[in-house]
Structures are given as C-alpha cells and as structure tokens.
C-alpha cells in the first residue's frame, strides 16, 4: 500500500475537518510553545546559577587543604610552588589564580563587622571572577603587592566608611595569635547588594601573607571554558596536588548544585504533564474522525485496501497534525524566547530571588536537546493517542460498514 497515497489521503482528510483540526493544532502549538518557553526559562535559571556559583570566586575547580572548609583559617593553608602551572590544555582553561582567604573583623571609625578577607592576584581575578565585570568606584587593586583594600558598596555603607578612609583589620595569624593592621580603602565594588558584597573584602596577596606571617595560600581556583572539562581537569589537579582536596563547584556550593539537578527533573516533569493534558483532546478528535468515517473505511476495505493500511492512515493523520503543531509551537516558542532575550525582570522579588540563586533578570536559555526532547515526546504522543482510534478503525468490517 503506497505510503504517498496514504499520506495524501491523510493530509486531505485533515483539511476536510478544518475547524476541529485547527483547534487541535492550536492546542498542540500552545503546549509545545509552553514546553519550549518553560524549559528555556528553567535552563536560564540553571545556567545562571552555575555561572554565578563559578564566578563568585568558586571557579569550576578549587584546590584546598583538607579541613579548610570546616575551619577557613590560615592554619589550613598550603604552600604553592611559585613555578606552578595547572596541567590543563590552554583551550580548556580561562584562567587560574591563588588566594588567601581568612575570616577577619573589620573596624571602621564607627562600626565593626565580621568579614572574609581575601588576598588576591588582581590581574588573574579580572579574567576569572566577578571582579572583572563589576563596577568599581574609586580604584581597583593594582597588583598582588597592593596593600590597600577593596570593599563592597554595601559593606562600606554598613561600616560608614568610604574611599580613601582607613579601616582596621583583626585576624588570626599563622601562629594562632591575633594580628592587627590598618588598611586604606582603595575602592568600592558594586555586586548588586548580594551577600558577597556584604562579606568579601579584597587586598593584595603579598601584604596579607606578610600580615599573617606565612607564605602559604588557602586556595587555588581554576576557571574553565566549559564545565564539562572539569572532570578531566579534576583528576589532573589531584595528581599535581597530592594530599589536598580538589573540589568542583557542585561540591563547594551544594545548594546551587541541588537546584541545578532539580531543574533537569522539573523540566522533564512539566513536559510529561503538558503532553498528558494534550492527550485527552487528541484522542477525542481522532476517535471522532474514525467513527464518522466508518462507511468510508468500510468502502475502502471493500475495494481491497488491507486492514493495515487503514491503521497507517489513522496514525498518519495523528502524526501529521502533531508535527504541524510541533513546528508551529517550536517557532512560536523560539520567537518568544527571542522577544524575552533581555530577560524577564524579577527585581520585584529581589530578596527571594537571591535565596533561590536567581539573578534579577531571568534570561531564557534554549537548549536544542530540550527541543529534541519535546519533539520526541510530542511524536510519541501522536503515536500513542492514535492507538485506540486505529484499533477501532481496523475492526470495521466492510460489510457492516456498508450495510448501515
């Protein structure tokens, strides 16, 4: 039974019942567009979360001494060979850096705050962390010997200090005794008022090491071009840093990692739900299409068409309308994503989104694997929904149909 003939019959039969097939087409279109848009928004969230986790000094991979995570003091530091270079191919690596990060108390003329004091290599940071992209009022740090301090705007506000003023740092040195030093505020960075801004203060690596009385560092952070490279990079670093912990961003930010995984599951669940919601209407329409053409099917059987061909006809009708809706839905979904390319403004819920790890603009991110998934599910739906109607169609005996 030639397929092209059946295809032609199926296509024309769709047009015969224009109105209700149009309704069905629109329903599938809405469902598919919805799937595409929702998945893109969730992916946007997912990828932002990862990007933020990575950019907020976490990096894709970090090397630390065991015990540092529980007690982030210089007591859990380690020494780094000055000639060290990570054994990672240049095309996978964006950059890497070393840092000293210790808890400290910062006193201004008026106020006191507990903070995280971080000694950095400013040039490296500019490439690999958020410091490279935030607005800085005043001066940024020049190099690793810069003895000034860079604060968050929010922290400065809380301490009631400003660029050019002095603050005092009290922290625990390598020998376990408290150290105190004065710093001049070089500049203030604006990280949109997030928790980082209230807690992180930066200074040059060397002066901090000197204050603490050590040459050790507390972490090496590596930023890769794509997170997928981290698996291999992990093992390479582990070899280089035998005895130390090598952790990826998922281990360092388990909340973010959990949200990340949840997103994948959420997308799948929504796809299934929307397809199910669609199924009822699809089966209804297909069944009616078969039942009102009992005589026609009977006549075709009488003429000599095989039962299998009747099944193919029904299935083809179902699949072709699903495909039409699929194409339309993907187009509309994609169009919507382009329309929202600048992101959806969530600033109304600024505190809530911070808790959830969202940014103030949710930018959709379309993954073609998601589009493929939707398509596969829609086609599967088309096939499954046509099962019962096709079964009914096959049972039509030529004689019964004609006698009616």
């Amino acid at each position, binding site marked *: 039974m*030639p397929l092209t003939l059946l295809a032609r019959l199926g296509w*024309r039969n769709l047009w015969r019942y224009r109105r209700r097939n149009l309704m069905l087409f629109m329903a599938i279109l809405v469902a598919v567009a919805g799937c595409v848009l929702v998945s893109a928004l969730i992916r946007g969230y997912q990828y932002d979360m990862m990007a933020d986790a990575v950019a907020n000094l976490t990096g894709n991979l970090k090397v630390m001494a065991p015990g540092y995570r529980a007690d982030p003091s210089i007591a859990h530091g380690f020494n780094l060979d000055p000639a060290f270079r990570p054994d990672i191919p240049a095309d996978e690596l964006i950059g890497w850096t070393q840092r000293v990060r210790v808890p400290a108390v910062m006193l201004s003329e008026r106020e006191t705050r507990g903070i995280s004091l971080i000694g950095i290599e400013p040039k490296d940071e500019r490439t690999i962390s958020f410091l490279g992209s935030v607005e800085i009022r005043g001066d940024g740090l020049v190099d690793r010997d810069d003895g000034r301090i860079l604060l968050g705007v929010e922290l400065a506000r809380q301490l009631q200090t400003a660029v050019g003023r002095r603050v005092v740092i009290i922290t625990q040195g390598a020998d376990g005794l408290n150290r105190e030093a004065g710093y001049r505020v070089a500049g203030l960075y604006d990280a949109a008022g997030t928790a980082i801004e209230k807690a992180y203060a930066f200074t040059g690596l060397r002066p901090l090491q000197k204050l603490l009385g050590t040459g050790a560092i507390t972490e090496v952070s590596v930023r890769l071009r794509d997170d997928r490279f981290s698996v291999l990079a992990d093992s390479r670093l582990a070899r280089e840093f035998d005895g130390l912990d090598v952790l990826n961003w998922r281990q360092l930010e388990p909340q973010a990692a959990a949200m990340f995984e949840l997103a994948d599951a959420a997308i799948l669940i929504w796809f299934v739900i929307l397809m199910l919601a669609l199924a009822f209407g699809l089966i209804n329409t297909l069944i009616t299409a078969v039942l009102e053409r009992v005589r026609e099917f009977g006549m075709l059987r009488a003429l000599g068409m095989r039962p299998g061909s009747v099944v193919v006809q029904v299935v083809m009708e179902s699949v072709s309308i699903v495909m039409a809706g699929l194409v339309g839905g993907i187009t509309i979904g994609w169009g919507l994503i382009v329309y929202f390319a600048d992101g959806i403004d969530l600033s109304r819920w600024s505190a809530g989104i911070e808790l959830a790890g969202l940014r103030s603009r949710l930018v959709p991110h379309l993954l073609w694997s998601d589009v493929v998934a939707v398509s596969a599910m829609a086609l599967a739906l088309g096939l499954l929904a046509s099962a019962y109607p096709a079964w009914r169609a096959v049972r039509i005996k030529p*004689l019964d149909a004609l006698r009616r």
Partner: protein
Amino acid sequence: MVVLCRNLSRVYRTEAVPVHALTSVDIDIAAGEFVSLSGPSGSGKSTLLNLIGGLDRANEGEVIVDGVALTGLNEAQLADLRLTKIGFVFQAYNLIPVLSARENVEFIMQLQGVAARERRIRALAILDSLGIADLANRRPGELSGGQQQRVAVARAVVTEPKLLLADEPSANLDSTTTENLLELLRRINVERGVTIVTATHDPIVMRYARRRVRLKDGRIVADELVDEEIAAEPA
C-alpha cells in the same frame, strides 16, 4: 464460468431469532452475462451479491470466482481478490470524498501498484470513454448523484475486472439518470465483456439485465434469460 455457487447458505445470528438470509442457493454465471438479482426486501439478493464479492462468508456451501474458491481465503487474500478481479459499485458512498474524480479512479490502480504515468493515462481514458472527462478534477461533493455513480463505474471498471458487482446502483437516482447509468453499464458489458451482476428492486435496472434471477425468502424462485431485443428497448 466466472462465478460458481454451490449449496450456499447464510444465517445471521441475532439476539432473538436466527435469520436465514440464504438457503441452499446454486447459481452459475458465465462470462459476459448481465445478471439482475431481484426480490422483495429480505429476499437475500444483497446477501448473495456480498457472498459472491467476498465481502461476507457463507455458513455452508462454496463460492468460486474465476476459478478461485473463496472459502479457503483469509482476509488479506480476499482483499487482493476484490482488488484485482472484482469491481464494486455501491448504492452510495462510492467515492473517497477528499479525492477528485480522476484521483478516485487512479486510487484503485495505486492500490494495485500501477505506475503513475500509466495510471493517469488510463484514468483519463476511462473517464473520457464514459463521457465524464470534464468532471475529472471535481470532488464528489461537487458532483450530482448520477455523476458520482458514473465515476464509481469508471473506477470499478478501470482495472478491467472479470466481474462487476452493483448493489442497488440506482437507489438514489431519478429515472432518466438511471437510464443513462444503465446504458453505460450495458456498453461496458457488451464492448468490454465485463460480467455484471446487480442486486436491485428497480424495474429499470432489471430491464437492462438479460438474465433475471428472482429470489424470495433466501431461495432462487426464478431464473430466466430474456431476449436481447426486448432488453434494449425502453419500457
């Protein structure tokens, strides 16, 4: 013999009482005959036609069409038989609504696997020879009852079947249209040698048949050959 029926019986089991549609019917039909099966409602004429056409299975007895016994065939084989050896014209719903007249005629050839070019040529030829070439691109919805039946005849005949079965072909037509349709059938019967068997209660149809078989209560009660001359004259 194109059709051989021996001791044919068909009983329908309903909830109440079994209906004996046909009882012990014997009939032989030779090539080139134009047969009418007539009788009152419930006489079994349509049942007999359906059995000959392989649309129904007998409870008892045998049907042999063009040398092939129908009793041993499965559904697929019966379908093939209907496709290649038998042409059908029904009372109504003959044509596929979404295909044009030409496409309806081509459809049957597509089922047989005839090549596109040949299909087209043959379809247009048959439509032309039946005088309805101008209807080629119209859909059934755009044709009158009589025109639809003519297209149905074209479709039934284009595959050059041995046998053409027509079940109440004139039921929805007025008398003039019926005359035209039957004239068409007669031409096919005479010019192409197609054996025609029709089940009908329409006297106009019966007049064109040279062999008139009458049934009553599931049995053949009369089977007479009529003179050629008388058949050709209108009543």
